[in-house]
């Protein structure tokens, strides 16, 4: 145990009670960021305790990284100082839920799955189905800024997060928004916290609007030999009155990788895996829901559109197969990342829906990228995830950064902003993890200063060295 660790442990236990500080190497491994563990991990059970920890850190000049399920700690740059992991999993209660209000308020440490179960009893949902779902907390899912398949219908966390309470870098509590669906009282500070990776404040309580759970849910799957046909199918869906709850395009390698991870996890994927053949290179997966009549209508229209777009195979899944397909799509990005042993990168690109197909074509056809097993998952709204990995495809590690730069140059030609949410630690110093900074970075620095004047929250982890 380090000296800092011992000192912190003694102080933390006086603040938070015995057993609330972890300092042994085995216990700290969970909080490791790119190979670096903190000196100590502290578990806070209330907003007041979070304040205590932050004030202690201020006094001792210690840097804090807030942490929930510890699934996304590697996102962003590694913090330049990492003294304390602040574990928030004890803030795990549903604090206010009247189904008749269609709102819910919960501790930031509540697991996504626990919220899902609470709401499902009342046939409601919060559309926060981000990757690592089963191990993530609400706070982590919001702070990571990761999107989810259901953004097609509901947008991202910032669209349905209606309020939050948090602790700022001054060790004081703060709040914004509330627990009503319409509210313009004061600045929407909680929107700043969505995607802030814990660099502004520690989320302690989060409020969402909820939505009705559809009576039935289905997943439509169509396979295509040519990318342009798959792109045409996506465009046809966008031009139709249909309202899919999720819409993704994947290359076969990405789909098979995601499916393979599900098989490895012991799931029965036979119904779902039987439909991909060798010559089908591109897959479109659309989730939709509603009552029986609405589902049948969407299924019928999708089938007809897939046929017109020259799909080689089209199916509609219900029940267990639907649930499995949704899970496979939701967890596709972690599966793709893990398949390369975490040695590569996944870039997130914000392009237009109409030009996504052309961009994906340029990326996947570039000969110099082939050794790095390109994989694509593109959401219907134009967000494209593109993965390259040096370990599994025979590409040499030395050539990897060059290959990524080639990919980034192709992306830049399409004038689409890009960032790298998954990046192996060894490439982070060479690659633009946060993309190209705009002039608004000056405003972001001032925002950081407003929330965290001493810079104690994950210093250096965010865009522009924030």
């Amino acid at each position: 145990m380090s000296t800092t660790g011992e000192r912190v442990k003694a102080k933390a236990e006086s603040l938070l009670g015995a057993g609330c500080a972890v300092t042994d190497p085995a216990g700290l491994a969970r909080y490791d960021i790119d190979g670096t563990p903190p000196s100590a991990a502290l578990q806070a059970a209330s907003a007041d305790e979070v304040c205590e920890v932050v004030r202690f850190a201020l006094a001792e000049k210690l840097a804090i990284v807030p942490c929930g399920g510890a699934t996304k700690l590697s996102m962003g740059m590694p913090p330049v100082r990492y003294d304390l992991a602040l574990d928030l999993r004890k803030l795990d209660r549903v604090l206010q839920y009247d189904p008749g209000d269609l709102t819910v308020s919960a501790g930031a440490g509540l697991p996504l799955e626990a919220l899902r179960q609470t709401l499902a009893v009342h046939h409601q949902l919060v559309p926060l189905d981000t990757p690592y779902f089963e191990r993530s907390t609400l706070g982590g899912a919001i702070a990571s800024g990761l999107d989810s398949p259901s953004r097609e219908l509901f947008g991202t966390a910032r669209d349905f997060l209606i309020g939050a309470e948090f602790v700022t870098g001054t060790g004081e509590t703060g709040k914004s928004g509330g627990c009503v669906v319409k509210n313009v009282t004061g600045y929407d500070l909680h929107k700043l916290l969505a995607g802030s990776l814990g660099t502004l404040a520690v989320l302690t309580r989060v409020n969402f609007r909820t939505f009705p759970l559809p009576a039935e849910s289905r997943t439509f799957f169509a396979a295509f030999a040519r990318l342009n046909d798959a792109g045409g199918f996506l465009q046809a869906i966008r031009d139709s009155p249909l309202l899919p709850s999720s819409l993704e395009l994947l290359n076969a390698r990405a789909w098979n990788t995601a499916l393979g991870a599900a098989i490895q996890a012991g799931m029965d994927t036979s119904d779902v895996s039987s439909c991909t053949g060798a010559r089908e290179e591109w897959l479109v997966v659309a989730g939709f829901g509603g009552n029986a009549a609405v589902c049948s209508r969407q299924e019928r229209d999708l089938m007809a559109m897939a046929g017109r777009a020259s799909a080689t195979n089209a199916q509609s899944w219900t029940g267990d197969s639907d649930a499995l397909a949704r899970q496979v799509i939701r967890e596709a990005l972690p599966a793709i990342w893990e398949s390369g042993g975490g040695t590569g990168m996944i870039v997130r690109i914000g392009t237009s829906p109409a030009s996504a197909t052309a961009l994906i074509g340029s990326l996947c056809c570039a000969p110099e990228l082939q050794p790095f097993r390109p994989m694509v998952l593109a959401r219907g709204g134009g967000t494209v995830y593109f993965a390259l990995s040096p370990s599994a495809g025979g590409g040499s590690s030395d050539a990897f950064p060059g290959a990524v730069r080639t990919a980034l140059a192709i992306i830049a030609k399409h004038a689409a902003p890009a960032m790298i949410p998954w990046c192996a630690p060894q490439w982070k110093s060479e690659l633009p993890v946060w993309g190209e900074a705009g002039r608004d970075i000056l405003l972001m620095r001032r925002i950081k200063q407003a929330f965290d004047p001493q810079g104690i929250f994950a210093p250096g982890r965010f865009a522009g060295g924030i």
Partner: protein
Amino acid sequence: MTSLLHELQALLGEAAVLSRPEDLLMYEYDGSVDHARPDAVVFPATTEEVANIVRIAARHDVPIVGRGAGTGLSGGALPLGGGVMIVFARMNRILEIDIENRRAVVQPGVVNFDLTLAVQHAGLYFAPDPSSQRACTLGGNVSENAGGPHTLAYGVTTNHVCALELVLPDGEITRVGSRFDNAGGYDLTGLLVGSEGTLALVTEITVKLSRQPEAVKTLLAIFESVDDATETVVDLTAQSITPSACEMMDGWTLCAIEDYVHAGFPRDSGAVLLIEVEGLTEAVTSQAEAVTTVCKAHRAREVRTARDTAERELLWKGRKNAFGAMGRIAPCNYVLDGVIPRSKLPAALRETQAIGKRFGLRVGNIFHAGDGNLHPIVLYDPRVPGQFEKAVQASHDVLRFCVAAGGALTGEHGVGMEKSELMPLLFSDADFALMRRVHDAFNPRASLNPGKIFPLGKGCGETRIRPHATAGNPAA
């Protein structure tokens, strides 16, 4: 002042600068009950002109307030500290429409409904639809994070804005947000939308366009009592029936509207709900049936379905002109804006009526019932001494009730200068300190729209507020 005016005239031309008292008169009002007069009103045509105006004003240490159409209801566009008012009327061009990707880039002076008119040929529209949508501007919508009846299903302005071009108080021009997926970094767009012009001047807006639904059904449910109508709304929500709009009007208000618009509303009811369901034909059919069943279960006398677009538009015309209809009944009205959790609706309506009685004032009720956004209209006569003050006190009592019920001070009209002194009902000193630091990150000298949102003593730029220009009785 003379040298300031000369510099502004040199920049913009004489026609684009107003400074004579008779010219300034109409700019001392917005849709609220407050008033404050600017020293000069300017009409820039480009972002660069806005930046230059800001630099000139900064050199003269004069505050600036942006203004769209002046339809705001919380005094957000009133120049509490005097100074230069920037009116965006000449920056009213739609710069780009991208039908394929459902985006539009507009200048802040574009009228909300004009954007919909420009894209409806392609089956698209701009979803936020405040009642003033035929007059109010998108710049104002962004400042106030405007709502409207259909935000129940589609969200408020912030859910439909992707990127902004800004002029900061030092004259810097910068861009925030991105046209499609976010590019990493803090969601500054999310902070700026609804910041009531206190952080930056918005000079260009990139918005999302929505696809018109395949089918729409508009239902008018007529009830004998307000309680039956509010209980219906609670039950609809509890049963997870989600109309795209769910508006309530009480019987007295309906008569006033009917006299004015002839929309076909009953004259002998306790209240009506105007409910719209949208989406796929199959979904609309079943939702309309479900809505009808719930209404009938709560003793609706009649549930009428609009037969065609004309009837539908007439019903909405009635709803959206309700505030105007009040002008026929009383010399002045005060439109309130509070939010409550939806399950508290019946109690809120009873409380509103009780408060009206207590102050001896007529209160009409018309509001976005589906999302718990109350808009009681307090009628008063400014010529009767003390009545305006009573209207304000009644408003405060309604808002105190909203907060106590777990709601908020404003759902869509903004805090402005109207509600800043009530903000401590919801926020602590530490909350204000953080908001002030965020404010100062953009607007450190409080040169933009001083005196708004923050209560006196908790904010910044109080020295810029003129004692004689604060809230008052417009007719006094």
